[in-house]
């Protein structure tokens, strides 16, 4: 993580205090008074950039702010790589015009490609070629592609597809790890994305309706009749663990004492396309099924925090205050045994049980993912009313 390279500007005494209060059980005490699963309040709006197909802006209470713009272009679909040598290819093409969205092995035969989506992340103060930024971008893109639903929606016919460019801009300074902010903004921007209405049929060159009012939503709003499944774009949650407590949406200070940080991407289990005569009702938390898409561990900045020095080894106190043995000049501070109340950066990894506990808590029914998805659905519905 690029932000790691910057020094953590928190003193060892503060770190020790934070660590102690965050690892309290049963309920940790967070610096901003949130509960362990509570998200920071946020302000969100969609359709803010008239020059894009879809856009969104989210502003967190701590002042970090992100804008995502979605642009699409028509592009010719490249034939599959094996097409030149594979004599069977012709047959596959014919089968292609058959039933849509068969699922299973049939899906592979349509030439969906992950190249249809391109995502760029820009973070102020970081270079374009910064590995941390590339990591962030890949993480958000990975969830979108693993979901599979987005790429399927970009197909026009067997010869053409939409090429989608997602531009993610962080406007403020990266105050904490910006992953949840960028992921939620991307989610909203995709929900507000509209594509021109197709008027040509079958495999002919695509022609579109000039009227923007006739454009269709990439993700049709709930309650609207549609051939597509009612899936929603995925979201990525940031989860951290300190001792036995598991915290969601950690701030900069909290990350500085983390034992492990995970980015967990989830999406709703897509339902089958609704029959044309019934109207789907908006899903509530109780009947929503979640799907785990990807997990990545993120290097916690706690590993590069400055260590505290116990009084017994501190040259300034001459080792007398704590009544321990006097300090040796050659004593290496690195070998200081863990002392209560003295900060020491964590070493090694975390056990499997802690990691699974973090993942399970994110996927819990009625848990954080549900809460966030409900919140985002609220934004979606509010924007529909405004229209």
């Amino acid at each position: 993580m690029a932000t790691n390279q910057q020094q953590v500007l928190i003193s060892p005494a503060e770190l020790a205090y934070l660590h102690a209060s965050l690892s309290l059980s049963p309920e940790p005490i967070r610096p901003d008074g949130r509960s362990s699963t509570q998200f920071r309040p946020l302000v969100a709006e969609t359709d803010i950039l008239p020059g894009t197909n879809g856009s969104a802006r989210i502003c967190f209470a701590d002042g970090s702010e992100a804008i995502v713009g979605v642009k699409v272009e028509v592009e010719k679909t490249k034939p599959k790589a094996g097409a030149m040598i594979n004599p069977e290819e012709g047959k596959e093409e014919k089968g292609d015009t058959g039933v849509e969205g068969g699922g299973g092995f049939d899906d592979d035969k349509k030439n969906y490609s992950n190249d249809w989506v391109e995502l760029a992340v820009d973070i102020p103060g970081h270079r374009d070629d910064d590995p941390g930024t590339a990591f962030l971008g890949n993480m958000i893109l990975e969830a979108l592609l693993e979901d599979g639903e987005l790429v399927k929606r970009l197909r026009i016919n067997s010869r053409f597809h939409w090429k989608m460019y997602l531009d993610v801009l962080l406007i403020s300074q990266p105050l904490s790890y910006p992953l949840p902010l960028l992921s939620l903004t991307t989610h909203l921007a995709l929900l507000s994305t509209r594509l021109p209405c197709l008027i040509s049929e079958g495999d002919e060159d695509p022609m579109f309706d000039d009227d923007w009012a006739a454009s269709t939503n990439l993700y049709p709003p709930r309650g609207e009749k549609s051939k597509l499944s009612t899936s929603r774009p995925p979201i990525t949650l940031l989860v951290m663990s300190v001792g036995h407590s598991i915290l969601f949406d950690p701030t900069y200070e909290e990350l500085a004492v983390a034992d492990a940080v995970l980015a967990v991407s989830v999406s709703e289990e897509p339902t089958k396309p609704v029959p044309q005569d019934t109207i789907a009702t908006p899903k509530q938390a109780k009947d929503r099924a979640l799907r785990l898409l990807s997990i990545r561990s993120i290097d916690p900045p706690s590993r590069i925090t400055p260590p505290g020095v116990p009084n017994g080894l501190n040259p300034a106190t001459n080792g007398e205050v704590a009544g321990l043995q006097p300090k040796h000049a050659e004593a290496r501070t690195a070998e200081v045994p863990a002392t209560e109340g003295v900060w020491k950066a964590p070493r090694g990894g975390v056990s499997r049980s802690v990691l699974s506990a973090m993942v399970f808590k994110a996927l819990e029914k009625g848990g954080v993912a549900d809460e966030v998805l409900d919140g985002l659905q609220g934004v979606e519905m509010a924007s529909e009313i405004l229209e």
Partner: protein
Amino acid sequence: MADRRRINGPVGVTSPPVYANHTPGKAQKDTVQQRPDNTLRQIFLKTGITPSASGSAYLEVTGPSTNGPSGLKLNCTVHGPRSLAKSTPFTPYTTLTTHVKYAPFATRQRRGYLRDSSEKDLGVHLETALRGVIIADRWPKSGVDIIVTVLEGDQPREVFKGTPDEGIDAMNVLSGCITVASAAIADAGIDCVDMVAGGVAALVASEEDKGEPRFVLDPAPSEHDKILAGCCVAYLPSRDEITNLWYKGQTSGNDTLLYTQLVEKAVQASRGANKVLVDTLKEGVTEAGKQSKGSMEVDR
């Protein structure tokens, strides 16, 4: 960003012609899995191959088809710990920098000289895996550079799949990078809490099994029709801890057992790789001992 300082290869893809020599009916399946699901492919590991670096290692994993020499080939060099440039601010810890670079000829599609986003991504993964392992506070104000070069990617040239499963390939490369970097760090004599090794497991489905999914250790993408989920871990066996976890797949959130099983399998794969790692280092120690007996100066 285009690289304008060097003479680059042709723009676009030039793929060497590959002739269909297998029977037309079996065109879909490229190679057939020849080992049981719960075994790894063979690993070759050797340390101390780059004399100018403080530590180095070379790793080779046999490819999916046993008839050719192709497979994963990785070279890793470790430079340091050495003092940082004067302009850098004070750090109480070793600053770790990791570079993962595919050689331009390593994969079917030619790679440029500059690192692209997938290579940078792998570098960050490797850094996460190693940072917890190195006892960084023993070298303040210093830096360690870890450079992994992928000489040959996992996909053999003959294997022709319409959409290469980038995900599992990247995981296989990452797991190799972790193991080879761990060996090179040990060769450089940098203090670690444990020997870390990478392991990959996947949930695959194939048409012969009627789509019934099964777990495979160390999966080769060309051997399977469909990979449902994959998991790569960096595991410390004696501490029983994970420093890096990368999971990808489409599994239902209610079915958390699947996730647990997949991590379990990846840890099992990592234990196998760790065994090779420990044996190689032991061998290196006895060899070094023999050499110094013969009054040869072993200079690092």
